[in-house]
Structure formats: C-alpha cells, structure tokens
C-alpha cells in the first residue's frame, strides 16, 4: 500500500501494518468527533510516526498514485475533519 503524508511525500507500507494503522485511525476519528484537541494531536502524531516507521519512502520520481493520503503533522482538527470520510482517513 502506498501512503502519502501531505507535505512529506509517499511511503510504501506493508499490508500487514494496516490493522495497526486502522486502530490509530479510529482513535483519531474519535478524538475529532469529541473535539478533544490533546487526544487528536496524540493520535495524529502516532499515526504518522507509525507510517514513517513501518514504511519506506518512495523515490521522488515515482509516478504511482497513493492508496491513502494522510494530513500534515501540524494539521488542525478542522483540516482533518474535512479530510475524514465516513470510514476514517483509512478506508476499510
């Protein structure tokens, strides 16, 4: 799976990591729904850190489209709220 973190670039993440990412995605979604800023920051930081840790950066001249696009590290809750679909940031 190819994941893009906005402002950072694309990462290839092994499909085995998806459940862990989904768990963090759920936390993020819950925090945004509750309007809980500290929980939101923690969940977003955790999610992005997981992608960076488990994924490998794609070279810049790759022309593959991403399966998933994650918000900036310093995104506000409002920005993330706009990106969230009914399924969270990560579909499925």
């Amino acid at each position: 799976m190819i994941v893009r973190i906005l402002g950072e670039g694309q990462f290839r993440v092994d499909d085995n990591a998806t459940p862990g990412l989904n768990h963090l995605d759920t936390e993020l979604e819950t925090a945004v729904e509750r309007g809980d800023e500290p929980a939101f920051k923690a969940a977003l930081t955790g999610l992005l850190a997981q992608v960076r840790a488990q994924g490998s950066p794609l070279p810049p001249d790759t022309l593959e489209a991403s399966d998933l696009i994650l918000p900036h590290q310093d995104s506000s809750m409002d920005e993330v709220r706009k990106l969230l679909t009914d399924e969270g940031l990560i579909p499925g």
Partner: protein
Amino acid sequence: MQGQYAQLQAEEEKLTVASQRLQAKVDAFRTRKETIKATYTAAEAQTRINEAFSGISEEMGDVGMAIQRAEDKTAQMQARAGAIDELMASGALDDVGGRRDDIQAELDQLSANSDVESELRRLRGEIAASAPKQLEGSGGSGGGANGDGPVHEGQSQAQSAPYAPPAPTQQPQQAAPQQAAQSAGIPVSDLPSANDQPQDGEGL
C-alpha cells in the same frame, strides 16, 4: 519573533523540498511518456500515460496545499503583528516582556518630561487666571509693584459691572470681598500676600 522567523524558515524549507519532489516527478513523467509512446499502441499508451499523470497530479495537489498553508500562516502572522502594533500604539498593551533599550528609555523620559511641562503650563495658566483679579482688587495701594498702570480703571470696571470673561464664573464673588475690604481701609501691610502668589506659581 524568533519563533515566527523559525516557523517561516521551516515553511520555506518544506516548500523547497516539495518543489524538488514535483520537479523529479515531472522529469520522470516526461521520460515515461516517451518510453510508453515508443513501446505501446496509441490506446494502451494513452491509458498508461493517464496513470502516470495521476501520480503527478497528486504531487501537484500536495504542493498546492503546502503553498496555501504557507500563505495562510504568513497572513496570520502579519495580521497578528499588525494587531500587536495597534495595541502597542494605542497604549492598551505595554511592551512588558521586551528588553528596553537606551533609546526607548530616553523616549519614555522625554514623554514623561513633556507631561510635567504641560502640567506646569496648566498650573501657571490657572494661577495667571486668578492672579490678575487679586492684583486688581488690591491695586489701589500696592498694584504699582507689578507695574500695572490701569489698575484703577480695571477696578472701576469691576465695580461698575460684574466681571467679564475670561475669568472663571466665581471671580466676581472672590473679587467683591476684596474690593469691599479695600474700601473699608485694609492696611498696606496685608497687600504683599496678594503679590506673593504669582511668585509661588513661578516656583512650581
């Protein structure tokens, strides 16, 4: 201030990296397109080029958002700086945390001095407004000390009609007892007190 500068520098670095990524993708797309055209039939080539282009358009979207964020952040900082300037200028906000340099201290001192000066002027004005009538009232025997020639003329005016502006409204009431006292024959030894007042005023 330092923090904002660092923030803007970080934004600039991000944008530089983003533009390099986009440039790499554009170059890759150009190469890929030529390869595809040479290798595939027209229909297949079109499909593959479209796929490659989606990679670029995603990158362009990312760069576009990064530019938007940088612009928003800059505008926000400018607005905040403008608001702080206005608050400082209006005096609602003091530069409490800021280090006060020598020039600022001197400027403050000057403005404080001018406050004192204006206060002094005001006090002198008040004294000047009240002093003449006292001189007028006592001028019959002692006004000559200030060289006030037409004292008697002023006195006669004051006596014949209520005293006119620019004197305060209470002036006729204050002047009247003195005039009455003088006509009753106040000793000359009491007069210096009236003359002393302007000198006290100079001392302020």
